[in-house]
């Protein structure tokens, strides 16, 4: 009994995956549960395991190649078993996409915007047949041509929305590697139907899994990345680099935020003298007691949120969910982007626990070894660019969360205290608020509490 190996949804938001490395060769005997390959999801590098016993007869996806979740990427079968039928078009090895939508999170968040925009797309493309089925619609966003985008799922972008497509056309497009967003449907309401797929001239279609273009040596080196980027074209003064999974996800998510989320900002400058004193005092107790400024801020934010559930909330479209627990997202810069691991129940954790956990999460985030459940489920987030010497900045809300605080650098500044100018260590915090959830006054009250905690850190142990 042969087992098909599919690109699986290894993270809640994963729509396509890049095969980083096969860990077995064709002909290797594998058992159910064995790790077959390393796959770069939109967030991390994950292990893809075998779902059946047998011999890895066929690897259908090359290392470095990207394919939609649900696509066939290999076959496990007995040595003498005929697997031709499973391979479909044999050499072309057209992956039959079997879209897996069993992970509900995979579509939440964008479904709303996607559906809404679909209506607009339909109207825009409603001028049916006269428009010419073969005219590729110019992409609203800069999608580099060579980035293989082979399923509608992969092309469900906020800007474009879901192209209405007959089930057959969807299957054919997937098999032939045709980007549905480049087509204009000739069916009712702009539906893409079989004849639209067939009208795509063969040279435009990419049979089966498209081969990644070879990286061209370029005078301008692309930024160092955890997984080597695919340079797709290069000019005299520039290098075009294919989007990594994580860069795509960041673009999609952040565009979602800055677009529909009505955000306002509240900024305050906090006195850090006592925090600094506390931190030095703890460090004097020994290395085991060292905590960072960031740890103290995290602890303070979690404590303040517990007192202000109106800010510890998710916007759910038709309702607002207020949380009684604080799961604090902590933005971490990683070589080719950022990720927000979560300190769960941060409100109930001691400073030492938060310090230990944030160190561990940050380290593993940089190695891209976080598991999906470690970077999903936050109720509120904190972003800190103080270490880069940024005085203050505004952070973009991570939907469906209602707020995020942006922490600036701690600097010595002259301030007036009791009528005299003195030099104090100061830190600026800017809170971004989703106005659908948080009002100006409620955000300000939260910051008031936060200021009280940070300027009187003993309250954190009260």
């Amino acid at each position, binding site marked *: 009994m042969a087992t098909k190996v599919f690109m699986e949804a290894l993270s809640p938001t994963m729509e396509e995956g890049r095969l980083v490395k096969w860990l077995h060769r064709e002909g290797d005997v594998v058992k159910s549960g064995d790790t077959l390959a390393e796959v770069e999801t939109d967030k991390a590098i994950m292990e893809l395991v075998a779902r059946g016993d047998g011999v890895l007869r066929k690897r259908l996806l090359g290392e470095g190649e990207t394919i939609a979740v649900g696509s066939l990427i290999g076959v496990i079968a007995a040595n003498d078993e005929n697997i031709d039928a499973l391979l479909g078009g044999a050499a072309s090895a057209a992956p039959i996409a079997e879209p897996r939508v069993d992970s509900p999170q995979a579509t939440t968040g964008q479904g709303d915007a996607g559906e809404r925009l679909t209506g607009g797309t339909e109207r825009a493309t409603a001028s049916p047949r006269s428009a010419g089925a073969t005219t590729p619609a110019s992409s609203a966003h800069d999608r580099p041509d060579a980035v293989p985008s082979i399923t509608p799922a992969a092309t469900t972008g906020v800007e474009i929305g879901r192209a209405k497509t007959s*089930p*057959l056309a969807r299957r054919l497009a997937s098999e032939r590697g045709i980007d549905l967003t480049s087509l204009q449907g000739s069916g009712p309401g702009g539906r893409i139907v*079989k004849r639209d797929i067939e009208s795509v001239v063969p040279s435009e279609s990419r049979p089966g899994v498209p081969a990644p273009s070879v990286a061209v040596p370029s005078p301008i080196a692309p930024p160092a990345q955890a997984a080597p980027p695919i340079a797709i074209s290069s000019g005299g003064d520039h290098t075009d680099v294919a989007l990594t999974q994580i860069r795509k996800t960041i673009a999609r998510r952040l565009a979602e935020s800055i677009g529909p989320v009505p955000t306002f900002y509240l900024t305050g400058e906090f006195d850090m003298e006592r925090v600094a004193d506390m931190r030095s005092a703890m460090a004097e107790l020994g290395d085991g007691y060292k905590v960072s400024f960031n740890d103290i801020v995290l602890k303070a934010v979690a404590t303040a949120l517990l007192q202000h559930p109106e800010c510890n909330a998710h916007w759910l479209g038709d309702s607002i969910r207020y949380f009684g627990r604080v799961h604090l997202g902590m933005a971490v810069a990683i070589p080719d982007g950022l990720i927000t691991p979560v300190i769960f129940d941060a409100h109930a954790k001691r400073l030492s626990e938060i310090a230990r956990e944030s160190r561990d999460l940050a380290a593993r985030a940089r190695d891209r070894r976080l598991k999906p459940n470690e970077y999903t489920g936050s109720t509120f987030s904190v972003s800190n660019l103080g270490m880069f010497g940024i005085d203050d900045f505004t952070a973009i809300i991570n939907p469906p969360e209602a707020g995020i605080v942006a922490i600036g650098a701690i600097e010595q500044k002259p301030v007036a205290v009791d009528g005299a100018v003195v030099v104090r260590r100061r830190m600026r915090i800017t809170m971004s608020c989703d106005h659908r959830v948080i009002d100006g006054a409620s955000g300000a009250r939260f910051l008031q509490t936060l200021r009280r905690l940070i300027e009187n850190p003993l309250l954190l142990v009260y």
Partner: protein
Amino acid sequence: MPVITFRDALNHAIREEMQRDDRVFLMGEEVAVYQGAYKVSKGLLQEFGEMRIVDTPITELGFAGVGVGSAMVGLRPIIEFMTWNFALLALDQVVNSAAKMLYMSGGQFNIPIVFRGPNGAALQLAAQHSQAWESWLVHIPGLKVVAPGTPYDAKGLLKSAVRDDNPVIVLEGEMLYNTKGEVPSEEYVVPIGEADLKREGDHCSLITWGKSVLVALQAADQLAKEGIRVDLVDLRSLRPMDVAAIVKSVRKTNRAVVLEEGWEVCGVGAQVVDYIQRDCFDDLDAPVLRVTQADVPMPYAKNLERAAKPDVAKTVAAVKRVMYVE
């Protein structure tokens, strides 16, 4: 091959089966002395006598029940209803006795009975006598239902029905009785549960049964002139239904139209569409469309009746719509 009428094909089937098995008998209103309201039983009284060709009073429930009882004790009755519109009165025997007896007797009593008669609208018989009943009958576990559209299929299916150990409903058509077709003189049967591809094409599946096969054939001819090749699936049997044949056709053509005489709501065609969406989802290039009778009691007025019935023009239009032409 001899060309005979649908009516004669049925007559030959009954005669051959009565000759073959002396447990088979025919019973119904006007079947004997009058030779059948539609002359299906012509000559049978003379050949088999009044013990085996039995005239009944106008008591559908009564003689249907006598039929079920006789089947329980070993006979193989063919019950003729003058029309299925009249058989409404007998449905308790059909549904509650014939269809249930094997089950409720724990397998002790087979009911090898055939209920047959014309189904659907003829011409200007008005609301009460112009109804297609297949969706009512197909709904019932324990019944088999066949609906031939040609003389060949009528004879072959009726013979299979008589030989079947279960109750079998044979839906004929008043407008079909005079139609002609090739029927071999040698012995043959058409197995229950097998569809027949009446036309082969790769553009659109047209799925139908019974009298609508005639409409579908004309629609297919007309579409062929415009270069549209229809794959005409004649289901022939509605229960059990040849789902494999439907799936095979739709996988080939990627689109389907289901044509039936009856009303749209909960019609047999709805069941066909369900099989298609379940098994051919990724093969479909267009929503499946249905052509049915208008959702009204059949009008008596000639023009309104014509407008209410599914016809060639409506079928052609539906096929073109799923082809995205026009």
